[in-house]
């Protein structure tokens, strides 16, 4: 398995605040990996840097060996990285099918839709996220759980190799969380490399075989969830200074 993503000494400063501080890690092709850390740790900023929504202050990001540091999001998506957002974003007044169609018309999306037809491709994605019976409905009138699924569908439409999922479970009921879990597992089984953040850890820690932990912008641990959860520094980051492993 080759390295798909290489992050080296990544740093992002916002004025006096260092949101990401000399952060390094690697992800191998086909991995299913989590990024955890307490609120404000810098998880979303790491995603913003990888996907091009923010430019790093220093450090390097390589995807499939290509240096993508500071590249624009639309170029990065064409290389094969897609992401979702913590707060759902969609074209509120377009139908769900049209929402997906937009991403199917991206460079990599077209590689698939050329063969099957854009409508068929978009419909198959809507079906895979469980929204096909709402294809003609606009997001504005749909519940939050459906919008989360739509977001993932829009990301899949760009035919990504690496999918960044930012807090895909937040604000969902337990049943809705299960639906999203199944969907993510299926994507991973289809060969997509998955990188996923969460601050509510119950779902995440049982889902992925490997997690990276960060705190105050810094790397603190990397390994299987059980091992990371028993790391003293991780424990202190979540529970407070002086926390002991019972």
């Amino acid at each position, binding site marked *: 398995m080759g390295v798909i993503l290489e992050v080296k000494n990544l740093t992002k400063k916002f004025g006096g605040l260092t949101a990401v501080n000399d952060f390094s890690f690697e992800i191998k092709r086909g991995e299913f990996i989590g990024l955890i850390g*307490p*609120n*404000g740790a810098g998880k979303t900023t790491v995603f913003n840097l990888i996907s091009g929504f923010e430019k790093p202050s220093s450090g390097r990001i390589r995807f499939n060996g290509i240096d993508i540091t500071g590249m624009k999001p639309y170029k990065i998506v064409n290389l094969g990285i897609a992401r979702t957002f913590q707060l759902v974003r969609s074209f509120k007044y377009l139908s769900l099918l049209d929402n997906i169609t937009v991403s199917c018309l991206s460079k990599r999306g077209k590689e698939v839709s050329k063969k099957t037809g854009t409508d068929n491709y978009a419909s198959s994605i809507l079906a895979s996220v469980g929204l096909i019976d709402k294809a003609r409905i606009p997001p504005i009138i749909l*519940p*939050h*759980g459906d919008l989360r699924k739509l977001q993932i569908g829009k990301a899949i439409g760009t035919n990504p190799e690496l999918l960044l999922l930012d807090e895909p479970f*937040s*604000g*969902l*009921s*337990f049943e*809705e969380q299960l639906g999203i879990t199944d969907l993510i597992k299926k994507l991973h089984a289809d060969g997509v490399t998955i990188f996923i953040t969460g*601050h*509510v*850890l*119950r*779902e*995440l*820690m*049982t889902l992925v075989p490997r997690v990276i932990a960060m705190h105050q912008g810094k790397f603190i641990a990397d390994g299987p*969830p*059980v091992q990371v*959860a028993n790391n003293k520094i*991780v*424990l202190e980051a*979540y*529970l*407070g*200074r*002086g*926390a002991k*492993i*019972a």
Partner: protein
Amino acid sequence: MQKLLEIKKIYHYYGKAKALEEISLKIEEKALDAVIGPNGAGKSTLLRVISGLEEPDRGKIEFLGERIDKLKAHKITKKGISHCPERRRLFFDMSVADNLKMGAYTLKNKEVYKVMKNFVYELFPRLNERRKQRAGTLSGGEQQMLAIARALMSKPKLLLLDEPSLGLAPKIKKRIFDVIEKIKQEGTTTLLVEQDAVLAMDVAENIHLLEEGKIEMRGTKKELEKEPRIKQVYLGI
């Protein structure tokens, strides 16, 4: 001891997502209770439901034997519950002294206002030094002090404190928590919500562990100290 607040089987939803599920909680007069739990457990929602910023979908809240769960926030403040919100929510363009005045708007008596002002300035000498300064120019720790002081100005019977340690350096955190202990000693009943379990358990008499909207466990520091469930709730496994 007399009970000040009693919450009976409260439920609250945001859309379909359950934020609070069958929460019951009693707070005795002069007690310091803490609700701990990871981000998203429902801690802030619990305080918001008590102070009337949210109306619970089901259940009862009684304050001094009287139901308050259908009352609006400003009425609840008048009954003697003061809410120090997460991220402080100060009036940034107003001076320290004016922020304190805003906290005292329910007071009818000028003498009480003076007494309370002296009390909070004694509690936080730093605020006295900076009383003419704009709140927005204070450091993070000073802003937190001001938020607590403002909440105390109405001379509350019950103080709700949401995440007073948020975003503060360990040393400053400690200082804020020393004051929280002092407020308790002065006799103000306090319900503290805090992610930093270590700090909260050090000061609180009763600790309630919240996970995904439910109270998972409660007890004193001694009872919970060796409890592996706390770590599991925070870290998921």
